[in-house]
């Protein structure tokens, strides 16, 4: 069927066009509706793509019929399909959530532009995940980043503006570094297509230019992925942006940056170069570990729960980077698995906080006093997400921890395994603080049971329950991760 053949390009083009359509129509409710319909389409498309990838391993699509490596090619393998699934599912749940959340948090005249920017971000992130052209990655990266800056700045708190500006500066530096790296690679090999580059690189791998290129790209991606110590932009950006934005970003943005890292490290440069010749594996493990500890410790000291979760995200990215640094099959499987599971966890937590913000216009810890009684469903969902973050068995977070510890033990790094488990205790402390305040502090004077919009609650609980579902049935998540890893490692030239 014609539609199926063009799915790869449609998943980028449809959100882009939808964004343009929204601006033209300039109708608030219509904007939301179009966003919702687009996300539904994206979910449908991602499921189709997963099935197709299951049969043919890799889907290749050339834009405009110009053949690779001269033309721009879209390649969807298991990893890309997994990323598209994460993005589409997050987009759908966030769209459902956004109806009421946006009304409350964003001034009316900006609603239409908000939805446009959201769709552009989605288009950009999906584009990154499926393109096989290195420069194209840069273009989509900037598309999504610029839209993200705009989205973050729409938060009610004026500090959102400053946070967005700070992110803009750092993000642009990061993207420009990536651009430099791509340039060096192009000069040495004459091609921009990832697969072609992978074949041509080994011949020139021993030059300073390629080493420099590698360094630039990894630093650039590191900034985008909030790898410690390049994470400075994240806490404020997540804390002060509108709830819909922080939810979506926490679930997707940094993961896509990690995806870019994996693509470059595995598909392009190959394990041999990246992780053996260059000391990148050690670097990743060290920085990942620092991220885990630093993020968790900083999180404990925050009084703003959103900032607490933002630092927690830095820690979780640390886990993923640590897993990648192991440079082994169990390591990569654990990393990809956690990319998926963490989207579920943070999605739940940030959505729950969004509901708090909806009612009380603040996410300070003190505001959440007694919330176990005044917003019981919200807190229950938050608790589920929190337990998943800690890694209690029965939740998706436990599955990630399990695979990560196995990967670490497989590499005989049992001190790090112990450290990962200790970090769970740190997580217990800061999540425990929130739960304690919600369930054990008295309800403030005059506050009664709060009503919250059904759409927001539904989206929240879908995220929350999926934590439990994917904690007990890992066929999809772990299956896809394993498949992707097999393809990636087998692709090494």
């Amino acid at each position, binding site marked *: 069927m014609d539609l199926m053949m063009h799915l790869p390009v449609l998943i980028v083009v449809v959100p882009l066009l939808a964004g343009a359509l929204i601006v033209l129509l300039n109708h608030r409710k219509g904007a939301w509706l179009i966003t919702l319909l687009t996300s539904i389409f994206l979910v449908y498309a991602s499921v189709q793509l997963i099935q197709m990838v299951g049969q043919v391993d890799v889907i290749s699509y050339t834009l405009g019929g110009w053949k690779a490596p001269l033309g721009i090619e879209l390649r969807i393998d298991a990893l890309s399909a997994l990323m598209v699934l994460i993005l589409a599912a997050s987009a759908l749940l966030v769209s459902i959530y956004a109806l009421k959340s946006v009304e409350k948090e964003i001034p009316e005249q900006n609603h239409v532009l908000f939805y446009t920017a959201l769709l552009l971000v989605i288009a950009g992130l999906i584009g990154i995940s499926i393109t096989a052209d290195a420069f194209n990655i840069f273009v989509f990266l900037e598309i999504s980043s610029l839209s993200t800056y705009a989205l973050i700045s729409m938060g009610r708190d004026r500090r959102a503006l400053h946070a967005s500006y700070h992110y803009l500066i750092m993000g642009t530096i990061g993207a420009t570094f990536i651009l430099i790296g791509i340039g060096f690679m192009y000069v040495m090999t004459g091609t921009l297509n990832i697969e072609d580059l992978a074949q041509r690189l080994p011949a020139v791998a021993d030059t300073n230019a390629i080493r420099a290129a590698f360094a630039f790209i990894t630093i650039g991606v590191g900034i985008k992925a909030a790898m410690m110590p390049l994470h400075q932009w994240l806490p404020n950006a997540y804390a002060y942006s509108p709830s819909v934005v922080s939810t979506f970003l926490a679930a997707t943005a940094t993961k896509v940056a990690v995806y870019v890292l994996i693509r470059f490290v595995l598909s392009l440069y190959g394990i041999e170069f990246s992780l053996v010749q260059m000391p990148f594996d050690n670097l990743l493990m060290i920085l990942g570990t620092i991220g885990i500890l630093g993020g968790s410790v900083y999180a404990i000291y925050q009084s703003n729960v959103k900032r607490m979760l933002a630092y927690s995200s830095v820690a979780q990215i640390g886990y993923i980077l640590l897993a990648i640094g192991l440079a082994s099959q169990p390591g990569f499987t654990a990393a990809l698995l956690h990319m998926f599971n963490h989207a579920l966890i943070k999605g739940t937590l940030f959505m729950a906080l969004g509901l708090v913000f909806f009612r009380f216009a603040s996410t300070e810890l003190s505001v959440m006093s007694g919330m176990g009684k005044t917003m019981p469903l919200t807190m229950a969902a938050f608790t589920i997400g929190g*337990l998943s973050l*800690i890694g209690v068995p029965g939740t998706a977070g436990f599955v990630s921890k399990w695979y990560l510890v196995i990967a670490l033990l497989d590499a005989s790094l049992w001190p790090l395994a112990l450290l990962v488990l200790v970090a769970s205790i740190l997580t217990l402390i800061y999540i425990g603080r929130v739960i*304690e305040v919600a369930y054990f502090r008295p309800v403030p004077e005059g506050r009664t049971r709060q009503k919250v919009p059904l759409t927001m609650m539904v989206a929240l609980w879908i995220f929350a329950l999926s934590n439990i579902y994917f904690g007990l*049935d890992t066929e999809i998540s772990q299956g896809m991760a394993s498949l992707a890893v097999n393809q990636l490692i087998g692709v090494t030239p």
Partner: protein
Amino acid sequence: MSIELLYILILLIPLLTAVGVLVCHQKPNVREAVTLIGGISLFLVVVALAFNYDFEQPVTLTLLEPFPNLSLALRLEPLGLLFALVAGFLWPVTSLYAIGYMRAHHEKNQTRFYFAFAISIFATMAITLSANLLTLFLAYEMLTLFTLPLVTHAGTDAARRAGWTYLGILMTTSIGFLLLAIIWTWTLTGTLEFTPGGILAGKAEPAILGALLLLFVFGTGKAALMPFHRWLPAAMVAPTPVSSLLHAVAVVKAGVFTILKIAVYIFGIDLVGQLDAAYWLSMLAGFTILSASIIAMSKDNLKARLAYSTISQLSYIILAAMLGVAGGIMAGSLHIVMHAFAKITLFFAAGAILVSWHKSSVSELNGIGRAMPITMLAFLLASLSIVGLPPLGGSWSKWLLLNATMDAHNMVLLIVLLVSSLLSIFYLVEIPIRAFFAKPSDPNYNNGINEAPTFSLIAILITTTGCLLLFFLVSPAWNLVEQIIP
């Protein structure tokens, strides 16, 4: 009735009871009836399972398979059945006690209490039926979380802090040590199934296996081995029914049950006998026994004294498990039963004293026997069971334990056991002696009998009779524990 159906019922009944409790929130009497019916039916199902189950042909029920080759599954074996019978019997009895206590004490949030009780029993039953370490770990963590609202029931600052201590110690040990040990075992052997004879023999050098054993035992924080014992006295801030069932029976017994299961079905008793780490752990258990007994003697608060007594008694079981002889396993398993009945009686009595007379310190109990003769008599009998004197059930497990230390040629531990029995006379039997023979510290004690609330009194009588009956009718329990290591 198929075995699988019985398994499912054992898990389902507590859950349904929990739901029933919530539904009957507005009608306390119906709510209490739901709890009692749930408890009694659960016990009957466990008994049915006991009669219909053939240990030679074990039946496994796989619930879910979260990881490839790793499932959440249920399978009964003699030790699990023993624990299930004990917990299943004592839940309705404690519910009976709780009805009397909570009403007489005018406790708030009773629905939340009975609900949390029911789901904690669910978790306990899941522990007894676990077929592998993953299922056990899941149920173990659930038990910690489900009992937290019970520990912090009072809602006071002290309760909150106790909750943090409880959660902190238990989750730190379980995530930091136990989970690590479980995953490590998985990487070494490729399986987590409980298998007679163990799965670890020959899979790694003794040094590694020793480290693994240490991780497992220290990871089981619920067994209150020093230095991870602080949560137990901290949890005494909870209402006495909570302390009785959970901290004399369910939570702590889940801890020692885990250690016994790991010793028998993961390591294998022969391997345990060979490991140096096991020797050192048995010594640590011995140290815990003595120091906890000494601390108990110094405590004037009755519940605190009982808490340290529990810590001491739990280490009896840990010691027994680490001896590496079959007799030790038998002794430890039997002690689960004996100690459960005895300790629960003691806690019941302490709660009754609190409710009827608002006394919580030992020094205030002089002469209270005049006012609460039945309760204090029960206290006396239960204390004697703990000391290990006939005709109380505790004498059997004590005797087996002494034999086991001799089997293992460990004279030091033999002496430790004898000394601790002596100490327990001092810190436990002292109390009923004061109650009956000392001059009353409160003149009201002479004003006639003011016993425990009726329901609670009935519960006390049931458990005390249990302590006595377990001496004379010990053979069913004996048969079960003999089958653990055939």
